[in-house]
């Protein structure tokens, strides 16, 4: 019976016209793929928004309990007024952005792993969406969607806080104009946007690495993402008594501050949470976009990206 089954095809050749249906425009499949990522990962907007709401709540509570702060603000000199307004705005931006980075990290760790674990990869692969578009959509979540959503939330939160302050000042018979006169609002938002963008580009290889581990690991992607790197740093320290890997990690974490802004040391990573302190004159986009650190990072991110596209094709459900 075997031989009869085989003889059926023995003389045939692979011929016949290729008849395929025209593809959907790639922009459309990409858009829907991005939309699907947001549907699945509602924490992309819920997490930063929750932190923002909590911060507004905390500031409101504090101002209602200590309304004398507002009178104090009204009586300050101009420099101190500016500082007193900029610092809370900086805290809001810093905390919301930090939240969004954390969301991005955990998103990446699950993005390629989750669909294999729950076998939904069979459903996604049954649709005419290429691995390239799928990975592009997943990479765009931490690189584009999260930053845009987060920035909008940051600006909205800052405006809500400033409006709240104004209303409370008016209610206490104080001149609320001081807020809008002293705070360099547009300048502050430009600096925040610029710093956030620089950080996102700087972190591209980190997101790439996390996506790669997520696409490759058969279990515990978080462990695989962190432990080998830590182990390498420790082995290096013990074997060679050097700390290159450790410094490389530190540089990747906060090196963009030194590259993107003048007059802020690379080591003072905390400065980015108070990006609002920085005047426009200290922005150095030229230096940033020509920095070796940015480009080596982007090349590494590109390599990880290519590897993830390939893994998406090869890896089967766990």
């Amino acid at each position: 019976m075997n031989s009869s089954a085989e003889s059926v095809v023995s003389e045939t050749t692979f011929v016949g016209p290729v008849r395929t249906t025209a593809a959907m425009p790639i922009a459309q499949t990409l858009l829907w793929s991005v939309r699907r990522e947001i549907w699945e990962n509602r924490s992309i907007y819920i997490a930063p928004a929750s932190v923002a709401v909590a911060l507004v709540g905390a500031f409101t509570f504090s101002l209602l309990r200590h309304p004398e702060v507002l009178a104090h603000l009204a009586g300050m000199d101009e420099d101190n007024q500016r500082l007193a307004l900029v610092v809370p705005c900086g805290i809001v931006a810093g905390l919301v952005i930090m939240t969004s980075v954390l969301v991005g990290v955990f998103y990446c760790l699950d993005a390629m792993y989750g669909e294999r674990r729950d076998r939904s990869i069979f459903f996604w692969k049954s649709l005419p969406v290429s691995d390239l578009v799928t990975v592009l959509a997943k990479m765009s979540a931490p690189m584009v969607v999260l930053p845009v959503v987060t920035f909008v939330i940051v600006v909205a939160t800052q405006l809500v806080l400033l409006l709240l302050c104004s209303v409370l000042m008016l209610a206490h018979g104080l001149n609320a104009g001081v807020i809008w006169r002293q705070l360099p609002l547009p300048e502050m938002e430009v600096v925040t946007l610029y710093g956030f963008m620089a950080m996102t580009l700087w972190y591209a290889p980190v997101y790439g690495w996390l996506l790669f581990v997520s696409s490759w690991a058969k279990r515990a992607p978080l462990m695989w993402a962190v432990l080998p790197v830590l182990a390498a740093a420790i082995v290096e320290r013990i074997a060679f008594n050097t700390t290159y890997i450790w410094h490389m990690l530190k540089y990747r974490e906060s090196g963009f501050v030194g590259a993107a802004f003048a007059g802020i040391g690379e080591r003072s990573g905390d400065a980015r949470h108070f990006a609002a302190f920085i005047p426009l004159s200290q922005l150095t986009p030229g230096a940033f976009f020509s920095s070796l650190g940015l480009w080596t990072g982007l090349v590494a991110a590109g390599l990880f990206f290519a590897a993830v596209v390939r893994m998406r094709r090869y890896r089967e459900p766990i």
Partner: protein
Amino acid sequence: MTCIEARGLRKTYGKSVALDGVNMRVEEGRILGLIGPNGAGKSTALHAILGLTPYQGELKVLGLDPWTERDALMRDVCFIADVAVLPRWMKVSQALDYVAGVHPRFDRAKAEGFLAKTTIKRGSRVKDLSKGMVTQLHLALVMAIDAKLLVLDEPTLGLDLLYRKQFYDALLNEYFDGTRTIVVTTHQVEEIQHVVTDLMFVNHGRIVLDCSMDTLDVRYAEVMVGPEHAAAARALKPLYERQVFGRSVMLFDGVDRGVLVGLGEVRTPSIADLFVAVMGETQGVAR
């Protein structure tokens, strides 16, 4: 026109051989039933056809290489590779929106029509649906795609009897139009008896039987042989013999019906009987 053509298809997982040089050819407009025990290589073969797993050998589906051209292939092929693979977080409405957004041949109205016959709500998430409802949803999505090839791997697993019958009726009456090709695997051999046009048995990564249902009628015959004719019947070398109420039921391959009529009541074997006979034989060979 050939829909699927494979030559020397081979796939190994470490030392175990999942596909051992499979040759197969499925013409357009056929409904092929792929039958085999667990671990026979059915799913691996389907996964290779759908571009889900790499393989050795030659394989063309609708003239495309599934492994390197999966996304192009999926514009004309749709499949249910496994039950319950719809993402659990997804809402029914999102599933409709998404498939409509990425698939050029998806007819949303048709899918809505299928869903209208069920109790599935648009706002429900997949994780809140019963197992049967998830399958219904998946089938509604897949059957609304105007594909040239539909691949179903155990489509009725977890469905109750009533819905299984409805499913195959819908497949034949509303989906199959004579030009589409359908490949279906199932453990419930009897339910596809009157659905498939072609039959393939797979065992140990090989195709052990490949014939159309028309050929099956001509080639195989099952005879209820009384004790008085048993010796004469055995001389014709039946493929398989079993005892029913003191009489022997023998299954013959390629023996002239004119000869068999003299031995007892002759009928065409069911797929299940043929499966047992052929698998028994190949198991013996394997030993």
